[in-house]
């Protein structure tokens, strides 16, 4: 009897552990992607979704708790928190992606130029990068906002400037390695012009590390945007952003913590997902590179 049970139990046991082991590796990864995907989709299609208007106050819902109508309750003016979190995702992701995208393109190109041509242009560019890096980022943003006013474009421009130096460094370092490879020498030997070498031979090999780093930087910049909005230096108030929402709930933090808590939780989960996916992609990519 017991023997029968054992043999019956044994065969399914092996595949089950195998599945669990394979699943364990990708479980968090897929959860992260699911979360990030939902946030991105919600942000993209926010106007099409059956949401409350994020800008219209509803005095019956001031400090409102979780109800079937208002899933995440209402804020200090009674606006629907769920709707504002979704619309806030647009602002936060827009700032993160645009600033990092700009920084990665500009810094990536400058870094490849510095790393390929070396000499004076390299010295000049690394010097500029060092100066910008030495400059306190927050002060730069405050200066930009103070002079040009708080707006989405100014915020993106300021953050992009801040991210350029790191991308210059990363791209230059990668280029230094790639430019030593024989295929670059071979391209020079058959008469390929420098800019074409950069575009055709070097850029395809620099794009991946830069993109992997950029992905993680998007998460960092979402947090930075949150901090700036909290300080009142981010996206100006009527437009919902996660940082702005956390800041708005600040005054009632003890009595109604959920007003700040929900946007903070969404930001936390989003940045966590980005970091998790980014770190994994970076590792995968590193393994690939070492195989070459």
């Amino acid at each position, binding site marked *: 009897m017991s023997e029968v049970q054992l043999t019956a139990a044994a065969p399914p046991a092996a595949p089950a552990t195998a599945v669990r082991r394979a699943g364990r590796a990708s479980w968090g990864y897929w959860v992260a992607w699911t979360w990030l995907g939902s946030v991105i989709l919600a942000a993209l299609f926010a106007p099409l979704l059956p949401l409350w208007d994020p800008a219209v106050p509803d005095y019956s819902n001031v400090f409102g708790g979780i109800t079937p109508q208002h899933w995440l309750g209402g804020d200090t003016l009674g606006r629907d928190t769920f709707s504002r979190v979704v619309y806030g995702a647009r602002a936060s992701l827009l700032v993160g992606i645009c600033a990092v995208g700009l920084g990665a393109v500009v810094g990536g190109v400058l870094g490849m130029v510095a790393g390929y041509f070396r000499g004076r242009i390299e010295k000049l560019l690394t010097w500029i990068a060092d100066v910008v890096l030495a400059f306190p980022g927050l002060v730069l943003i405050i200066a930009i906002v103070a002079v040009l006013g708080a707006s989405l474009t100014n915020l993106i421009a300021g953050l992009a400037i801040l991210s350029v130096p790191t991308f210059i460094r990363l791209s230059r370092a990668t280029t230094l390695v790639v430019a030593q490879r024989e295929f670059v020498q071979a391209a020079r*030997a*058959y*008469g390929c*012009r420098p800019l074409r070498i950069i575009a*055709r031979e070097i850029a395809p090999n620099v794009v991946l590390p830069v993109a992997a780093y950029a992905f993680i930087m998007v998460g960092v910049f979402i947090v930075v945007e949150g901090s700036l909005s909290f300080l009142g230096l981010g996206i100006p108030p009527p437009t919902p952003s996660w940082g702005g929402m956390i800041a708005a709930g600040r005054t009632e933090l003890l009595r109604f913590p959920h007003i700040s808590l929900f946007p903070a939780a969404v930001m936390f989960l989003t940045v966590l997902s980005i970091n998790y996916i980014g770190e994994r992609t970076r590792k995968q990519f590193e393994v690939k590179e070492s195989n*070459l």
Partner: protein
Amino acid sequence: MTAADVASPSPVAPDVTDDVVLRLEDLVVEFRAGNGGTVHAVSGISLEVRRGETLGLVGESGCGKSTTGRAIMQLPRPTSGSVLFEGRDLATMSGEELRRVRPKLQMIFQDPISSLNPRRRITDIVGDPLVVWGRGDQRAKVVPEVLEAVGLDPEQVADRRPHQFSGGQCQRVSIARALVLDPEVLICDEPVSALDVSVQAQILNLLEDMKRRYGLTLLFIAHDLGVVRNISDRVAVMYLGRICELGETRALFDTPVHPYTRLLVSSIPTMQDVADLEQIDRGGGEMPSPMDPPSGCRFRTRCPLATERCADETPLMREVLPGRFAACHHPILDHAPEHSGAPAAEKAAGKTTGTTALPRNGQPSREDA
């Protein structure tokens, strides 16, 4: 313009013979080391490569043979000296002029994997030189031809990427890329040393085939004496940035004139040597640092025949026997029959190869480094 002005007063012009396709004159390559010192990688090499021949360039690792190959390609430009390709000095050419000459002078490298861009497909890699030279429309015809010539099936390999190939196959792709522009001279920088022995033979045979088919001149750089002996018509032996012996392959291997060549040749392991491994003469061990090379003859620190004169006076390249050139004060001229057991019939006594020793060009021809 400026190149012509510089070249015309050169005393070398009368020497230029028709069959010399590449001529190095007093080529010097120095690098600045991190600690402020100078690495004398190549210290005044003069060499002729004749059209249609295979010239082997051998020496230990770090003797400057690869640097010489790259200096010929002007990657980077040499510190001083000239590289005359079909009578024109590459070292003093402007960037654009040099670019226009480049297709005639191609190179294949030691690391077959690193020679190919991992992010591009094989057709793009092999066809790229054509695109650069405005012949992109010929790709569809030329690329499959040349791939087939190097022994790859164009239909199978065209859309693949380098990491899907073995080292030997990658080296075939490299050769295809070098040949697609129909060059005159192919510089092979240790093309087989990263490959398995069985694949080495295939690639060497391929190079020989391609040499015949495309009428190439080969400069074959290697540290493997067996390989060089197989493929070369003539051999130049390098030691610590200088050439110490130059001669027809068989004569050089059978009756080495320079003590260093003798050491190299005797270091080729035979079954007998393997039996008594302890007996191998290592000639004083390691090569001195190229940052601080010995005075006079650079081999003197390891040379059993060295005298005071070797420390004081740098030996110049001279014809020590008919057709045999060596830079040595004490060349080994009496090859007794017992030496290395070489059959007497094979001794290339008096076989003149018609080479002339290059006069050392005293004038500094440094233009732009």
